[in-house]
């Protein structure tokens, strides 16, 4: 299966209630403000692609949403509950799954031990987590006793995304899923994103790899210099992204 053939649900954002809302969020590193009042609404069940050049503030926004960084102003709402003050671990337990930039794994733990950590989400048994992961990624089963940090980049990313697979999150944040990976692996991972989307999960996807991201997205926005510049359908954003990337 190619990325183009990934089944993605057709959604009409206007009719759906938001699963995630970001309202006038500002955030700073020391004295340097990097988010200058970001507003974004991610409808429930949608795949929302957040695009933008390097340094636009996309990853910072994901850090704010996942509770790793406190906003200096504004609020983050998941469902109908403001979550801006919740610590990261509580957010995770309430159904937010964030796969960070790079590899969201513990390199000095084995694959199996990494999967054991996923059970902190609550209500999960080690056995079911292993079964589900190995069924989707048989390669990880072969490597279950291997230190995760010694696997290939693609395998590491499979392990990282397995957390989203087994923890049944309400909202999934994916930061630069394709970074440093071969196109074939990227396709494989995006197939899984499509599958998760087909299950009705709300996904906020941050990518520089515009084409692939827009193929699975139902909605997209472009972020530049810490602000949302444009928002619209994936096809609208494909053209807009080109001009933004070229001008930046």
């Amino acid at each position, binding site marked *: 299966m190619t990325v183009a053939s990934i089944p993605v649900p057709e959604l009409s954002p206007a009719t759906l209630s938001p699963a995630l809302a970001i309202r006038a969020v500002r955030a700073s590193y020391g004295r340097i403000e990097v988010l200058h009042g970001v507003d974004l609404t991610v409808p429930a069940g949608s795949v929302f692609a957040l695009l933008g050049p390097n340094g636009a503030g996309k990853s910072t926004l994901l850090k704010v949403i996942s509770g790793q960084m406190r906003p200096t102003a504004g609020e983050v709402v998941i469902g109908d509950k403001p979550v801006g003050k919740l610590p990261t671990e509580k957010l995770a337990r309430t159904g937010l799954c964030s796969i960070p930039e790079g590899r969201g794994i*513990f390199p000095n733990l084995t694959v199996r031990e990494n999967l054991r950590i996923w059970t902190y*989400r609550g209500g999960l048994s*080690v056995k079911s987590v292993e079964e589900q992961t190995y069924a989707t990624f048989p390669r990880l089963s072969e490597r279950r006793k291997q230190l995760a940090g010694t696997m290939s980049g693609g395998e590491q990313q499979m392990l990282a995304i397995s957390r989203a697979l087994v923890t049944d999150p309400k909202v999934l944040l994916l930061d630069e899923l394709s970074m440093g990976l071969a196109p074939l692996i990227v396709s494989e991972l995006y197939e899984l994103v499509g599958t998760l989307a087909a299950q009705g999960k709300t996904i906020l996807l941050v990518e520089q790899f515009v084409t692939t991201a827009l193929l699975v997205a139902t909605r997209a926005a472009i972020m530049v210099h810490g602000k949302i510049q444009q928002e619209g359908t994936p096809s609208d954003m494909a053209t807009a992204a080109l001009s933004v990337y070229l001008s930046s």
Partner: protein
Amino acid sequence: MTSFLQYTIFGIILGAGFAIAATGLVVTYTTSGVFNFAHGAVGMIAAFSYWELVANHHVPVVLALVIILLIGAPIAGALVERVLMRRLHGATAERPIMVTLGLLVILTGVATIVWSPKNQYQLSPIVSGSFRQVSINLQYQQVLTIGIAIALVIGLRFLFSSTRTGVGLRAVVDDPGLLAMSGASPDAMSQYGWILGFVMAALAGVLLALTQEQTGISIVAMTLLVVNGYAAAIVGRLKNIPVTFIAAIVIGLLEDYIIYYALPHLSQGLNSDITLALPMVFLFIALVMLPSVRLRAVGRLSTVRVPRMPSGKESLLGGVAFFVLAVIASVVLSSAVVRGTNLLNLGGEIMALGIVGLSLVLLTGYSGQVSLCQFSFMGIGAFLMGKVAGGGSLLGLVAAALVCAVLGALVALPTLRLRALYFALATFAFADAVDQGFFQDSRVFGGGINVGRIVLPGLSFGGNRSEFLLLSVIFVLVALLVLTIRRSLFGRRLVAMSDSPAAYATVGLNLAVTKVAVFAIAAALAGIAGGLYATVNGTVGSSDFDFFSGIIFVLFVTVWSIRTVSGAFLAAVTFVVLTTFWSTGLGLVAGAGIILIGRAASGILGIDRLSTLLPLPWVKRASGGGDSGTLAGIGITPMGGEARVAG
């Protein structure tokens, strides 16, 4: 044959004690990423608390153990994590080392106040009685120690590999942020880790104390007893508990065989020196046997605020200003005596120690190599100054510099391929081995050696004032030398090596040569400082350069700022003044200062707003705006942001 069997069994018993200490170190490192230099001190406090409860207040043994292991140690571990350790994740390599050393001196300081070193502290075994097996008498207490060691290895192995909490405890070291994203609290995990580490340390302390039935327990001996476990923990690479256990047993056996078979053939004095230095020798061998560290191109980026370098002109002006102040001080204080201490002599000691501080600025501040053995070089320098050419001769200073430079290179050579922590441990081992095996030997310093003042053709430094001014001039010259080195190509290489050894090597520069060179220069400076220090009061003894004082001095330099000349000078002032007027508070003040290091990575002089608080005439605003000022005159400079690659 019976005696061999006997020594073997005693060796295993000894090794079991080491194993308990070593597994505790491994547990702390596994769950926090920090090598806890205070592990022995925690055990020492536990041992003395046990004595206090059982021997002094007649509390039942079981209740005492519950109070120490299940209440006291967990509370202390949780507190230490919350106050000292929480901010250290991702810090540069030297900060956790300094913070745990700070904890070590706080705990020994507190213990010295509570339990006077003059008294005897005897303990009785938890279980008394013995049995005879294969014509060897074994005490139940010894069997209990072996049993506990084996149970701990099995239990901990199970905890860390087969339970979610154990895996979580390891995961928090890898990536606390990701652990939080997975639904576990990294702070709570980290706290559990420290609680477990403290309980292990306390258990080791109590059990090891009970093996000291004949000699009784003492603060220093108990604190250093755990060092026996360091080598085993290093062989287990600070993560493998079963290997650590086996290594501890092997070390126990080796130590026993050496003591019973080899040492009786040596002279009494040498025999005792080697016995005391054996743990450190094992540690050094274990470190040398470690495989080379792999150079990592990408490490954790941690922001370290690095001082702006004063220009050559600023340094020179600062040096002149400093000397003028020294001249004024020499006039004002010419006959000042406080509590029987001549203040000019005190000033001379400050200048000499300031030079040791400067050697640390060069070595640790600029090139990122943590050395805990500068006082050893200082002591060797003082010894040579007293012995070469009848004492007080310039030849003595030359010998001090040369011998220390060579020794420094010899210490650095086998360990420079290791990462910062192991390098620091090697210097720790060297410092203690030199102290126990050389300085404490009555044939070296004895009751103190006479050195006399420096004699130069046509110049006399017999008076306190001229001696003080001579040392001030030498301090200024060495400070200018250190600043010049920092501004030179070699200085830029040192900083580059500290920032990213991988990048340094990949541009074709030789890491080994640079490390050996800087270590040798710093050792030579410390040797010269020792020689000068010896001339101030005319006599020096082993207590001037003891192991703990050396550590406390490094802590003071770190607290003030290990990256500035001013930090070195202020550390010397603090150290000498406290040693002279309030020696009991020395460790406590250093330790309290270290709590600050958990919060202000660059020391007191690195605090941004300090320059605005100090109404000194040479304070001026930084040219680029912002709120950091310049204390360039004496080398106190504003901190500019700089990203450094840690670990």
